């Protein structure tokens, strides 16, 4: 069962449109919500006139900040900085000033358009440069962080990591460059949807959320209820990618439900999701020293990450990626300065890769630049510096936990590294590691029914990554039950035990282990029953998957239970836990449970006259420890690779001077389609059984997008001679770079 490509649980429902998403839930008496927003990022709100809007037939309530408790309730996973509705001033384009509740979506929309907001547009902070400018307006009120020395700046937090002494480190070659990675949006195919409903003395929330238990806690806190009185239903999301980790508009809906006494529903449009979640933009300066043979001497880095108006989980993303910016290499000396900057833009949050694509873009491009300057092969320079198993990548932290060089060699072989290239073509190779979950707790319940079938209760969200399938496979393996006889119950905080979150490629390792432990607990109980029933001694009973054995005895689980319990029946309940405790002394609160390592190699062709690129071959090699379901791991890796091509080649949110997104929507925000795929896309897995998860598994599913951008840019540089340090590599940008090399002469291709 483990190691087989079992069919996806719920896959048919997903592709036939039969899956019930949050947006499909209809409750009796449900009202509909539309947000009232302004036409710019930042404005002072003078007055809100709801007169005309209230007159629209079907309107039941219009909530403004004035209707909320004082001080205004705030929420957020890092800081409680986000108000339920804008107070006094909007901080980003799309921030709601009011919410209209009506009997129909149409009435709510019409009325929202009739709410008159008297306001005055104010200058907005939209870029890294303006966020760092001491004379720029403050995005957040310093009163929100009175004891913070940075309170009167737009630097929400600054970290200093590093080791050794960069100032004293000598080098034969110093590469000093700046790299930018723009804002991009998640573009989950299912837009966020939320429902809140009063439930006697509590609340029920439906949300397309990755972390139902953190949402439960956020709602309980913001409305002042015990956890037991807030129940969250989390139907499987239709894609999340980090954009559905934490509370978005659920707190607002909770207040609306309490106020109207009825269920209220808000389903965002695609455009509204662009204004609700995005990835942090980064500007990274790296000064790197190398020995003449390509050995890294030091990295001296400064990462300025542009978050939005509220922190959400972005500071964690920014700290974690900065901490590991040096990548999977042995780096003797490092200085790392990281800043999380506030701006008047969409709040940035987690995004598949959790900051690693941004930092890998910079560091891997530095490796290429050094290779070119030193005349060292780009593959060679990586292999030379790559940490081998047991080598430290950050001194004192978890050492390299895989055979990473094996992955690199396989990628190089698969792309034909070193073989002759046709004119106009180039190859690139890049590596990256992402630190997995550091801390966290996952609880699972496994119920063995008296007919031998099994129900697994796990708080993981299956957002398309296949968690249901892999958890069923673990239970099936441990209890010897075919998948058709296993049910997986998820997405209900009222019945399923606690799981901290579904993120950081952690579920197979964390929840998988919890399920495994719960199954082993069931097996322990079976042994006890057999011993009691047959009067056997400890050690005489062996419980194997599906079978209980003792001298002269071989019973299937259900046969044993039938003999033990007769007509009264019953069930066995096993609980399992996997915890990673908080380590206060660790800069990130704990070492990662494992590293997700990826090597990506591409071969592409550039049309020098138009800047258009065609990726001919794309190879992604992931070190997954053990693929519990190889087909699922591959499609996750391929999906990540394609998503990586999106931010590499075409995705970016463009703002106008008012802070509005100019390419707001599917028409002008481009993500790859099936026609934009590489002509050949291969995902290879390294399986050495060396992960901390069940059967030696590591997490997977983010790796494929970590190293795409530097690999592609490296190939473009080889094909054209043009080195580009800003993403995305649109045809126009490539064309500009090629043009800039000089019209007449074709420059020599880079040396290595």
């Amino acid at each position: 069962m483990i190691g087989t490509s079992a069919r996806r649980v719920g896959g048919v429902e997903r592709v036939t449109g039969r899956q019930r998403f949050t947006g499909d839930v209809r409750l009796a008496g449900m009202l509909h919500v539309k947000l009232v927003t302004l036409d710019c990022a930042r404005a002072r709100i003078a007055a809100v006139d709801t007169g005309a809007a209230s007159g629209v037939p079907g309107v039941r309530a219009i909530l403004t900040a004035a209707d909320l408790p004082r001080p205004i309730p705030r929420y957020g996973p890092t800081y409680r900085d986000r108000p339920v509705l804008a107070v006094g001033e909007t901080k980003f384009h799309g921030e709601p000033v009011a919410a209209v509740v009506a009997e129909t979506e149409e009435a709510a929309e019409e009325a929202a358009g009739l709410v008159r907001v008297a306001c005055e547009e104010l200058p907005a902070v939209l870029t890294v440069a303006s966020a760092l400018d001491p004379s720029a307006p403050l995005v957040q009120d310093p009163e929100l962080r009175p004891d913070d020395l940075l309170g009167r700046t737009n630097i929400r937090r600054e970290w200093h990591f590093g080791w050794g002494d960069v100032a004293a480190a000598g080098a034969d070659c110093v590469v000093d460059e700046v790299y930018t990675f723009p804002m991009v949006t998640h573009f989950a195919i299912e837009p966020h949807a939320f429902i809140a409903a009063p439930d006697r003395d509590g609340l029920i929330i439906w949300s397309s959320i990755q972390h139902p238990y953190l949402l439960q806690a956020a709602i309980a806190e913001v409305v002042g209820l015990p956890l037991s009185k807030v129940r969250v239903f989390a139907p499987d999301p239709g894609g999340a990618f980090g954009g559905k980790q934490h509370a978005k508009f659920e707190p607002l809906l909770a207040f609306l439900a309490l106020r109207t006494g009825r269920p209220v529903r808000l389903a965002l449009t695609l455009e509204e999701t662009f204004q609700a979640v995005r990835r942090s933009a980064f500007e990274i300066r790296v000064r790197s020293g190398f020995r003449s043979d390509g050995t890294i001497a030091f990295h001296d880095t400064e990462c300025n990450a542009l978050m939005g108006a509220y922190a959400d989980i972005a500071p964690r993303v920014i700290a974690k990626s900065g901490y590991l910016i040096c990548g999977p290499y042995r780096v003797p000396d490092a200085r790392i300065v990281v800043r999380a900057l506030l701006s008047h833009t969409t709040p940035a949050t987690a995004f598949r890769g959790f900051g690693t694509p941004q930092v890998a873009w910079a560091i891997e491009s530095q490796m290429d630049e050094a290779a070119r300057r030193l005349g060292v092969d780009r593959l060679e320079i990586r292999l030379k510096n790559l940490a081998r198993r047991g080598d430290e990548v950050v001194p004192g932290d978890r050492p390299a936990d895989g055979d990473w060089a094996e992955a690199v060699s396989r990628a190089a072989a698969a792309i034909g590294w070193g073989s002759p290239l046709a004119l106009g073509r180039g190859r690139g190779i890049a590596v990256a590691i992402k630190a997995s979950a550091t801390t966290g707790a996952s609880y699972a319940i496994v119920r063995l029914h008296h007919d031998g079938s099994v129900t697994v209760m796990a708080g993981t969200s299956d957002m398309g990554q296949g968690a249901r399938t892999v958890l069923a496979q673990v239970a099936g393996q441990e209890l010897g039950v075919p998948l058709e006889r296993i049910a997986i119950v998820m997405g209900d905080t009222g019945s399923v035990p606690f799981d901290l979150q579904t993120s950081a490629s952690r579920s197979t390792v964390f929840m998988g282990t919890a399920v495994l432990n719960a199954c082993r607990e069931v097996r322990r109980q079976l042994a006890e029953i057999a011993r009691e029933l047959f009067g056997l001694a400890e050690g005489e009973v062996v419980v194997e998957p599906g079978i209980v054995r003792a001298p002269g005895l071989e019973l299937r689980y259900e046969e044993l239970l039938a003999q033990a319990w007769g007509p009264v029946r019953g069930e066995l309940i096993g609980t399992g836990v996997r915890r990673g405790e908080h380590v206060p002394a660790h800069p990130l609160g704990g070492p990662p449970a494992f590293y997700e390592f990826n090597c990506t190699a591409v071969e592409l062709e550039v049309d020098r006259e138009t800047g258009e690129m065609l990726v001919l071959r794309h190879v992604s090699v992931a070190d997954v420890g053990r693929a519990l379901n190889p087909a699922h791991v591959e499609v996750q890796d391929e999906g990540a690779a394609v998503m990586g091509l999106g931010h590499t080649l075409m995705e970016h949110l463009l703002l106008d001077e008012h802070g509005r997104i100019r390419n707001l929507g599917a028409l002008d925000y481009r993500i790859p389609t099936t026609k934009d795929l590489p002509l050949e896309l291969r995902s290879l897995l390294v399986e050495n059984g060396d992960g901390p998860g069940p059967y030696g598994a590591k997490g997977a599913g983010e790796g494929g997008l970590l190293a795409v951008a530097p690999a592609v840019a490296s190939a473009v540089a080889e094909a054209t001679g043009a080195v580009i340090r800003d993403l995305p590599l649109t045809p126009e940008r490539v064309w500009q770079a090629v043009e800039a090399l000089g019209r007449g002469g074709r420059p020599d291709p880079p040396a290595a």
Partner: protein
Amino acid sequence: MHGFAFVAPTAQAEVTGLLEEHGSEARLLAGGTDLVVGLRTGAIRPRVVVDLKRVAELRPGLSDAGGRLAISATTPLSRVVRDGRVRQWFPALAEAAATVGSIQIRNRATLAGNICNASPAADTVPALLVYGAEVVIAGRAGERRLPLDRFLLGPRRTALGRDELVTSIELARPGAGTFAAFGRLTRRRGVDLATISVCCSVDAAGVTRFAFGAVAPTPFLVADESGVLADPDADPETKDRVLAELTGLARPISDVRGSREYRQAMLMVVSRRLLRSVVDGRGKG
């Protein structure tokens, strides 16, 4: 989406009657692939939407008579692309129509809708201009015809009067020895709007025509009557000079799809490539 009345008349006279009654408050619906987007975003807020697909006189189809091909206003682009006469006589139109959106879009979208929407980037317009398409218009007073370049007045503006609709688009079969091709540049390969589009034709007399899209308020037509461009032996620099003059008539803007400079440069690149393929094709006969 705001509320509106929906009418699906069966006679053309009802359509013109409704148009006269409601004027700009009424909107015609063909495939809806532009209209519904506008309704959703609130860019247009008509009181009445009039569906053309039930109108007896406007049944979908292509018909030819006397060397002219007529494409009725409700004909989806997928049918235009498939039609043997279009492929043989107007290959550049088939190529252009085949780039519009996706299969799903082309199964709904009409040729008439593409021109009536009057987008500077409408992909079929450069080809229709090169082939000298005529727009057949019906109103309360009867029928009239306009060459396409006089029908298109500017972004989202056509020469249609208050009570008028387009009933068909007509194309005269080009003389023997005419070769044409269509090309465009997009930001990605799947479903995208053109950054620039170009249609190029060379006729038997050696006149080269270009129509450029997405580089001016409306797609527009230019011609080289000197024969230089059509001459396979003319020297590339002279050709480039002529091409630069023609493409220099474009007035591209900078927007999210591309900068003015990029559009201008790409117009030249794509025109040069298309010209080469058309002249080569002509050489092979």
